[in-house]
């Protein structure tokens, strides 16, 4: 696939605060991309640079080969769905959606046709004459989306599109957004702090932290093969075992079984961390290939799954284990924990916030 948007080494600071510290990434034509990160990671600044509300201090942004930063906000083929929706309160739904087309000096008949079409698509044809304050949150959001896609932008930016909706509407919208993107064929870039949102919708995700890109990958790869401690920690649950990378595995006191061979991102002899997902750990009594032994501290049942906290001697944090079905173990019971090499990943240790900023 050809790349549509190319961001190269973009930097932006506000006073002493570095919002973007050399971000480079590619968004491909027609994909559903997500910028994921905690608040303050710089994702909103990046979004505002793409929309033209901010300029980078350094670095380049090109859209289809053209320098985007040279184009003023009102002439960019990029539309944004605002987190607050930012609907014009004094205009009807119809007029809100028509606003962008009127600026293009489109003909009246064409405007009417395109507005009608897009309102139909978002299921709000009946609400065309109403004002924004007469709609529910979910409806307003669809108006905001309609207003942004009616101009058929080359890139559609969505700022935390689902954050203001309640859980049930959210799940529906997630599915619907994905379908919509498929139907209209516009490249979508979602900005979100919600990993579930990013994972369920996006084709590829860039994880941002402290103004830097940690990893860009498909949701499955991010989950299964995180390359940094931050990604392993931020996405899904994880158990971390500190140690030193040695030939053949991780030395944590003694050589920990169940470690994969050292990957390219970790140098032999350096500090390293083994990350194992709770659902990858087998729990039982008398396991042949037990890696750790401990006692059950806490058991909780979540309907479909059961979760255990297991205290392991010499380890401060209990190991989190998850498995389908009923618990089957009780607190204070001695258990074995085991996993295979393929189920664990070896990553560099966490970079502290202080050293990341330096």
């Amino acid at each position: 696939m050809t790349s549509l948007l190319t961001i190269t080494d973009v930097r932006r600071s506000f006073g002493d605060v570095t919002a973007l510290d050399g971000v480079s990434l590619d968004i491909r034509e027609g994909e559903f991309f997500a910028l994921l990160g905690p608040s303050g990671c710089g994702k909103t600044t990046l979004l505002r640079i793409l929309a033209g509300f901010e300029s980078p201090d350094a670095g380049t942004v090109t859209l289809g080969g053209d320098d985007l930063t040279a184009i003023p906000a009102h002439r960019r083929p990029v539309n944004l769905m605002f987190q607050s929706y930012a609907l014009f309160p004094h205009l009807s739904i119809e007029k809100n959606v028509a606003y962008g087309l009127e600026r293009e000096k489109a003909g009246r008949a064409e405007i009417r046709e395109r507005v009608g079409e897009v309102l139909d698509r978002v299921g709000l044809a009946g609400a065309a004459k109403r004002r924004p304050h007469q709609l529910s949150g979910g409806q307003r959001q669809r108006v905001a989306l309609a207003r942004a896609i009616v101009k058929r932008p080359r890139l559609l930016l969505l700022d935390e599109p689902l954050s203001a909706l309640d859980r049930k509407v959210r799940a529906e919208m997630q599915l619907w957004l994905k379908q919509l993107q498929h139907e209209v064929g516009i490249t979508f870039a979602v900005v979100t702090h919600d990993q579930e949102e990013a994972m369920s919708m996006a084709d590829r995700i860039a994880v941002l932290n402290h103004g830097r890109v940690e990893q860009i990958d498909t949701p499955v790869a991010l989950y299964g093969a995180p390359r940094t401690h931050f990604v392993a920690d931020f996405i899904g649950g994880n158990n971390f075992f500190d140690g030193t990378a040695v030939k053949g595995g991780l030395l944590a006191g003694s050589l920990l079984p169940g470690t994969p061979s050292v990957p390219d991102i970790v140098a032999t002899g350096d500090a390293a961390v083994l990350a194992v997902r709770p659902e990858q750990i087998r729990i039982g009594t008398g396991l042949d290939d037990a890696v750790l032994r401990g006692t059950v501290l806490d058991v909780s049942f979540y309907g479909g799954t059961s979760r255990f906290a297991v205290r392991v001697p010499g380890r401060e944090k209990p190991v989190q284990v998850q498995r389908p079905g009923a618990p089957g173990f009780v607190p204070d019971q001695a258990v074995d924990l085991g996993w295979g090499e393929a189920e664990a990943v070896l990553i560099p240790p966490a970079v502290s916030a202080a050293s990341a900023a330096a």
Partner: protein
Amino acid sequence: MKAKLERITLLGPGLGYLTALMVVPLALVLSYTIFQRGRFGGLVYEPTTENFRRAVDPLYLDVLVTSAWIAGVTTLLALLIGYPTAYVIARLPARAKTIALVALVLPFWTNFLIRTYAWIVLLSPAGLVNDALTGWGLVDEPLQLLYTKPAIIAGLLYSYLPLMVLPLYASLEKQDHELLEAAANLGARPARAFLTVTLPLTLPAMLTGCVFVFVPSLGNFVVPELLGGGRTAMVGNLVRDQFLKARDWPFGATLALAVVAMLAVLLLIQAWSGRRLQGADRA
């Protein structure tokens, strides 16, 4: 019961004050309009329609129209000057904003009469403005600035401009900045975004400001007296003269009623259009 008691306690003082000092006097004034004048002021309680007949006499009607015209021009100028002022203040950094707002209301700390007298000093033939004009050689001899309609308008405008700026400022200040970003994102250049988003959203505040300026301008008699010369330029002077000089209370009351009626119509229009624009005020 408790809620009722609470309402009475809270509303009571204000309501009582307004009833005693506004509703009752207003009712009295209105009742005067149907009686005849006493010889040395006061009333003769014999009903008549003579007062209303006199009020529509071109002589007096002309004063009413002139007053409305002066108040109207003052209001329009206040809007044209006040809007950019409010717009800039609303976009200042927090500290400068406070300073600007204090500066705006600072003149109110000085007595209204004194401030109006200051205009005499400015506009008189030997005043500052004429000094400057002759000094720079722009005019050969001092202009007659004082005791003209423009002088009245200048005085009223100076006095009531803050009443236009403050509601506009409040409206512009609370306006969501993201709406302008949304407009830009949808292809509107800044001037277009202002005309299609900012301006319509401040329409209710513009209306409020206009009423705030027009109402006291229409009834004012101090400014026309001092800056308009001894001539009865505006209806406020006329009413005052009828009560205090001509000692014709019933006719003074009738003219006062005419002013109240004009303002009531204006307020009704404002309330009506305010309700129509209400959607614009909500997010």
